[in-house]
C-alpha cells in the first residue's frame, strides 16, 4: 500500500521528532523498567528475608532457654542477618530474658539496648525499655532507670512505664512523687486487667 502525500508528510515529521527526542524517550523507558525491576527485586528480597527469619524464629522458640549457648547463637543470627525483620527485635528481647535468668546481666542489658534502637516494632522497643529500666533499678542505678523510662515510647505502654517509674522514685526515697506516678498509672492501665490491683496496693502501702 502506497502512502499518499499527506501521510508521507506525517511520517517525516515523526522521524524528525524521533531524531530529537528518541534517545531521551528510550532512556526514560529503560530507566522506568530498571526501577520497576529493582522494586520487584527489593520486595522479593524482603519477603525472602522475612520468610527465612520466620523459620529461624520458629526454631528459636523450641530451643530450651537453659541451653544458653545454642539459644544465644540462634538469637544472634536473627539479630545480625535479619535485622530488617520484626523477628530480630523479638529475638533480642528473648535472648536478654534468657541471659537475665542465667545471671548474664551485662549481655542482657546490651541486647535490650540493641532492641530499643533497632527493633522494627515500636511496641517491642517499649518492652525492651521497660525490661532495661527494671534491671537498672535492681542495680540501684535509679537515675539511669529514670532516663530510660522518660524516653519516648508507644502511648499504649504509658501505664506500665508510670508504674515502674513509681517503683524507681520510691527507690530514690521520693514517696510523694512515687504516689503521683502510681496514681497516674492507674488511669492508663487496662481497666479490666489484674495488674492495676498491684499498683493500687502499692498506693495503699504508702498510706
Amino acid at each position, binding site marked *: 500500500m502506497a502512502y499518499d502525500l499527506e501521510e508521507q508528510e506525517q511520517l517525516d515529521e515523526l522521524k524528525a521528532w524521533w531524531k530529537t527526542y528518541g534517545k531521551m524517550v528510550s532512556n526514560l523507558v529503560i530507566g522506568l523498567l530498571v526501577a520497576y525491576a529493582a522494586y520487584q527485586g527489593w520486595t522479593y528480597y524482603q519477603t525472602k528475608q522475612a520468610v527465612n527469619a520466620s523459620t529461624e524464629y520458629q526454631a528459636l522458640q523450641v530451643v530450651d532457654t537453659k541451653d544458653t549457648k545454642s539459644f544465644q547463637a540462634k538469637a544472634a543470627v536473627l539479630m545480625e542477618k535479619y535485622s530488617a525483620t520484626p523477628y530480630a527485635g523479638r529475638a533480642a528481647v528473648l535472648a536478654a530474658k534468657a541471659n537475665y535468668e542465667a545471671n548474664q546481666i551485662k549481655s542482657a542489658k546490651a541486647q535490650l539496648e540493641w532492641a530499643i534502637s533497632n527493633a522494627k516494632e515500636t511496641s517491642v522497643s*517499649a518492652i525492651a525499655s521497660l525490661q532495661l529500666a527494671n534491671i537498672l533499678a535492681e542495680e540501684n542505678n535509679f537515675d539511669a532507670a529514670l532516663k530510660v523510662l522518660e524516653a519516648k515510647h*508507644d502511648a499504649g505502654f504509658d501505664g506500665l512505664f508510670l508504674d515502674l517509674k513509681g517503683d524507681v522514685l520510691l527507690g530514690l526515697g521520693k514517696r510523694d512523687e512515687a504516689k503521683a506516678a502510681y496514681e497516674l498509672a492507674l488511669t492508663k492501665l487496662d481497666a479490666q486487667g489484674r495488674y492495676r490491683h498491684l499498683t493500687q496496693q502499692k498506693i495503699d502501702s504508702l*498510706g
Partner: protein
Amino acid sequence: MLDGIRSVAKGWVGKAILAFITVPFALFGIDSYLSQAGNNAAIAKVDGSEISVQAYSNAMQNLRNRMQSEGKADQAQLDSPEVKAMVLDQLINEQLLEKEIQRANYKISDAQLATYITAMPSFQKDGKFSQELYDELLQQNRYTPKKFEAEIRATLLAQQAQDGIAKLGFISTARADKTLKLLNQKRVVTVSELKTKDYLDQVKVSPEEVKAYYDKHKDKLRDPEQVKIEFLLLSASSLVPGIKVDDADVKRYYDENSAKFKGDEQRRASHILIGFGVNATPEQKEEAKNKAQALLATIKKNPKSFEELAIKNSQDPGSATKGGDLGSFGRGAMVKPFEEAAFKMKVGEVSDLVESEFGYHIIKVTEITGQGSDFESLKAQIKGDLIFQKAQAEFVEKAESFSNAVYEQSESLAPVAKMFGGQLQLSGWTSREEAAKFFKNDKIVSLIFSPESIKEHRNTEAVEISPNNLVSARVLEYKPAATKSFDAVKAGIEDLLKLEAASKLAIAKGEEALKTLRAGGSVANLDWIPEVKVDRKNAQGLTQLAMTQVFKTDVSKLPAYSGLADSKLGYLIVKIIEVDTASVADAESVKTAKGELSQVLSDEYLSAYKQSLREKVKVTVNQRLLLENTNH
C-alpha cells in the same frame, strides 16, 4: 452527530462500558448491589478498612452459639451495650493485628505451614499425616484446602505477632520479691469503732433547731398533688362473655380456611403397589385390579401378612424390600388419592384399593405424629379464635361511640357505663406517680391532671392505654400539692438532726482520740476488739471497709494508727501493732506466686500492645448502628 454516538456505542468503547456494568453483576450477583445499603454498611472503620454489619452479626451469632452450647445464653445480656462493644472491640483488634502483621512484614512460609498442618493430631492416622483424612475432614467441615490453609496461616501469624508479646516479659527478681512481700504481708491489728448510735443520748436537739430546719427545707417537704377518680374501661376481653359463636360458624370457618389448618401432622405408612403402566389398556387395568383385590383379601384375613406380601408382590422397588415402608411424610408429599386415603385412616388400619396414576395401592398407616388437622381436634381452638376476633371487631365498632359518649356526656361516667355494660371503678387518693404506675400510660395521667379535669370535673377523652383497652377517667376530688405541716414532720426532723449531731460527735471524738494515740498517749473508753493477724486474703472477721483501711495505713512507725470517718456510721480507728513481711511462705509457693505474677505482667503487656496498635491508626465506630443492631 447522533450517528457519531451510535457508532461509538457499537464500537469497542460502548462495549467496554457495557462490560463494566454487567461484569460486576455476573461476578457477584445483584445481591451485592442491593445489600450495600443494608448489611454491608460499615459498623466500624479501622485505618480505612471497614468492618461490615454482616461481619459483626456473624461474630455475635458465633458468641451466641458458643454460649448456647454451654447452656448459658442470656439474650438480655447479649443485647447489652457492654457485650456489643466487646464483640466489636474484638473485631477491631483482629483488624488492627492483621494490618500490623502486614506492616511489620511477618511471614509464614509454605514449608512452615505444611510442617504445622501435617503435625496436627486431627490429620494423623497410625502416627502419620494422612492426605485422605485431611481431604475428608476438610470436606466434612466445608473447607476448601485453600481456605483452611489461609486460616491456619493467619493463626500462625497472630501467634508470632500477638501471642509472642506475652513471652517477652520477665519480672526482675528484686521487683518480684518486693511485690510478693507486699502481697503476702501480714498485719497484727485491732480496731475500735465509735458508733453514731452510741452517741445519740449525748446530743440534744432544741425545738428551735427543728423549726429552723423545717423552715429552711420547707420547699422540699411537700406532699404532691393528688386526685380521687372514677374511671371506666372498655376492652375487647371484657366483651368476650357477650359473644356467641355456634358450631355451624366454626364448621364454616374450618371449611373455608382448611388450607390454613393443615397442621404439621406427619404420617408413616406402608403400601403394596400393583402397577399398570403408563398407557394401560382397560384389560391390563382390570388384570392389575384383580391381582390387587386378591392380595387385599389375604391381608384382610391375616393382617400380619402385610409386610411379607409387600416384599413378594409390591411393584414399588424402593419400599418393597422394606416391607412396603415409605417412611414419614406430611401433606403435599404424595399423590393426591394416596394422601387423601392415608390422612383419613387410623394407625394399623388397612385401606381398600386406592387408584393413582401409578397403579393400585393397598395402604397401611403405621404411625401418626404432630398436630392433627381434623375438625374435631381443632374445634375448640377455632371457636376461641372466632370469639376473640368477634370481640375485637365489636371493640373497634364500639370504640368510636364510647369515645363520643364520654365526650358528649362529660359530666359523669355513670350513663356511659350503663350504656356499655361496664363497671365504674373508684380510686383512693392518688398522686401522679401512683397513677402512672397503675395505668402504665403517660397520656391518660396528664389528661387526669389537666386543668379541665381538675377544675371542671369533666371526663377525659377516651385513651387507648394499651391495644384493645380504652379508658376514660373523671376527677372526683382534688388536693393540690402542699407543704407538709410542721407537726406531721417534726418527729422525723428531730431524729435526723440527732443522728447528724451524734455522728459529728463520734467523728470529733474519734479524731481527738487518734491525735492522742498518735502522740503516744492513751485514751480511755475505747473498745478495742481482740488483736487479729490479717493478710489481704484473710480478713479474720474485719469488714471490707476496715480491711482497706488496715492496708492503707502508713506503717513507717509502729504501732501505727489511722482513722476513717463515715457520716452515717461514725468513726473507725485502726491500730497496727506489728507488720510481718518475713514469713513469706515456702519456696514452692513463692515460685507459684512468681509464675502468677509474670502471667499478670504478660497480660498487661498484651493489652498495652493492643492499645498501642489502636492509638497509631484512626478507628471510628458507628455507635448508632451498633446500638440499633439486635439480631436474634
